[in-house]
C-alpha cells in the first residue's frame, strides 16, 4: 500500500486546503476498493507492478487534482481577443516610433549608432506587455464582462471594409496634388543649363534630362490612373498591375537619382563659393549614402503593390468576407 499512500499524498499536494481531506478520502476509498476487488479475483495480494498499473490508469496526480479545481484563466476566452488586439497596438506603438526615429537619425548621420538602445527597447516592450497583461488579468479576476461595455447593435458596427475599393476622395486628392506637383516640377526643374529655384541655382549633369522626362512620364501615368480610378472606384487586376509598374518605374528613377550624381553644383545669392562647394559636396556625399534606404522604401512600395494584386486575386476567388464576394 506504500505506492497508494504516496500517490494519494501527491494528489493531495495539489488540492485546495479546505477540500484536501474530503477528496483524498473518497479517492482513497475508490482505489482501495479496486485493489481489493482485484485481489479477490486473483486470490492473492497485488504486486507493486499491479498496484502501479491501477494508479497509472487513474492518472498523473497533478492531472487528477486539476479536475477538482475550478477552471481558471489568467485571461479568459472572452477577453482574450481584446487583450491580443490591445497588446499588439501597445507594442507597435512603443516599438515603431522608436525604430523610425532611429532610422531618421541613421539616414541623417550614418556614423551614428546610439539612438536605438536595444536593451532599453526590450525593457520598454517587456514593461508594456506586463502592464497590459496585468490590467487584463485584473479585469478577468474582477469578473468584467463584455456586457459592461453597454448594449450593442449590429447598426453600431463599422461598415464592412472592402480593401479593393478606392475612395473617390482619394482619387480626387491624387489628381489635384499630382497635377499641381507635376506642373510645378516641370516648370521648376525643366532641363536647362542652370535651374533657378527661388534664388538657388542648380547646375545639373546631362543625366538629369533623362531623369526629368522619366519622372514626368511616371507622373502623367499616375495622373491618368487616378482619373481612371475616379470613374471606376475599385482596384482591378489591370489597374493594380499598372500601379505596380508605375511605382516600380518611379522607384527605379529615385534609386538612379541617388546614385547618378546629377548635381554638378549648387549656389545662391549671398553664398560664398567655398560654402557652395561644401554644400554641393555634402549633397553629393549624402545622396549615395542614403541610397540603401531609398532601395528599402522602394522595396516596401513594390511589396505593397504585389500584395494588392494578390489580394485582388483572393477576392476574385472568394476567399475574403462573404459579403464582399457577394457584392
Amino acid at each position, binding site marked *: 500500500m506504500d505506492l497508494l499512500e504516496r500517490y494519494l499524498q501527491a494528489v493531495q499536494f495539489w488540492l485546495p486546503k479546505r477540500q484536501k481531506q474530503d*477528496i483524498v478520502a*473518497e479517492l482513497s476509498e475508490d482505489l482501495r476498493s479496486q485493489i481489493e476487488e482485484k485481489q479477490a479475483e486473483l486470490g492473492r495480494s497485488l504486486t507493486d507492478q499491479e498496484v502501479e498499473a491501477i494508479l497509472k490508469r487513474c492518472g498523473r496526480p497533478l492531472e487528477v487534482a486539476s479536475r477538482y479545481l475550478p477552471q481558471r484563466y489568467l485571461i479568459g476566452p472572452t477577453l482574450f481577443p481584446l487583450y491580443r488586439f490591445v497588446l499588439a497596438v501597445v507594442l507597435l506603438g512603443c516599438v515603431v516610433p522608436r525604430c523610425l526615429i532611429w532610422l531618421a537619425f541613421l539616414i541623417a548621420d550614418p556614423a551614428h549608432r546610439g539612438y536605438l538602445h536595444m536593451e532599453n527597447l526590450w525593457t520598454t516592450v517587456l514593461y508594456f506587455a506586463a502592464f497590459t497583461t496585468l490590467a487584463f488579468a485584473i479585469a478577468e479576476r474582477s469578473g468584467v464582462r463584455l456586457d459592461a461595455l453597454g448594449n450593442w447593435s449590429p447598426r453600431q458596427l463599422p461598415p464592412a471594409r472592402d480593401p479593393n475599393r478606392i475612395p473617390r476622395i482619394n482619387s480626387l486628392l491624387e489628381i489635384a496634388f499630382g497635377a499641381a506637383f507635376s506642373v510645378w516640377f516641370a516648370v521648376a526643374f525643366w532641363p536647362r543649363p542652370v535651374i533657378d529655384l527661388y534664388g538657388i541655382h542648380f547646375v545639373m549633369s546631362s543625366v538629369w534630362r533623362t531623369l526629368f522626362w522619366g519622372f514626368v512620364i511616371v507622373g502623367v501615368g499616375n495622373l491618368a490612373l487616378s482619373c481612371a480610378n475616379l470613374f471606376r472606384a475599385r482596384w482591378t487586376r489591370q489597374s493594380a498591375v499598372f500601379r505596380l509598374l508605375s511605382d516600380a518605374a518611379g522607384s527605379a528613377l529615385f534609386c538612379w537619382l541617388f546614385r547618378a550624381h546629377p548635381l554638378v553644383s549648387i549656389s545662391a545669392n549671398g553664398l560664398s563659393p567655398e560654402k557652395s562647394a561644401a554644400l554641393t559636396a555634402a549633397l553629393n556625399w549624402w545622396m549615395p549614402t542614403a541610397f540603401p534606404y531609398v532601395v528599402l522604401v522602394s522595396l516596401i512600395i513594390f511589396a505593397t503593390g504585389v500584395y494588392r494584386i494578390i489580394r485582388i486575386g483572393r477576392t476574385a476567388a472568394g476567399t475574403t468576407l462573404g459579403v464582399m464576394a457577394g457584392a
Partner: protein
Amino acid sequence: MSQSTASPDIFENLRLELRRGCLSLAVLSQLRTERYGYTLRKALAEQGIEMDESTLYPLLRRLESQGLLTSEWREEEKRNKRFYRLSPEGKQMLKQLVTEWQKINASLNGIL
C-alpha cells in the same frame, strides 16, 4: 479526387465532447437509489458507460454544489464511504433532462 483522412485525434475529441454532455444525465439517473462512488462507477460500467475516478468524483462534487445531489459519509464494511443520492431538486432536474434528451434523440434520429 480528395480522400478523407479524418484524424483519430479529432474523432477522439469529438467523441469525448459528445459523451461529456451525457455523463451528468447518466450519473443523475443512477443516483435515484443511494450509492457510493465505486459502486456507482461499476453500475455505470455495467450499462456501458465507463468513467474514470478523476471524471466521476469532480462531477459528483459539481452536481452536489448545484444542489442536485446530497451526500453523507457512512461506515460500511468497516470503511468510511460517501453515499450520494438525488435531492428533490435533482429529481426535478433529471425529469427535465430526460425530456430534453428524448427530444434531442428523436430529432437526431430524424436527421441521421
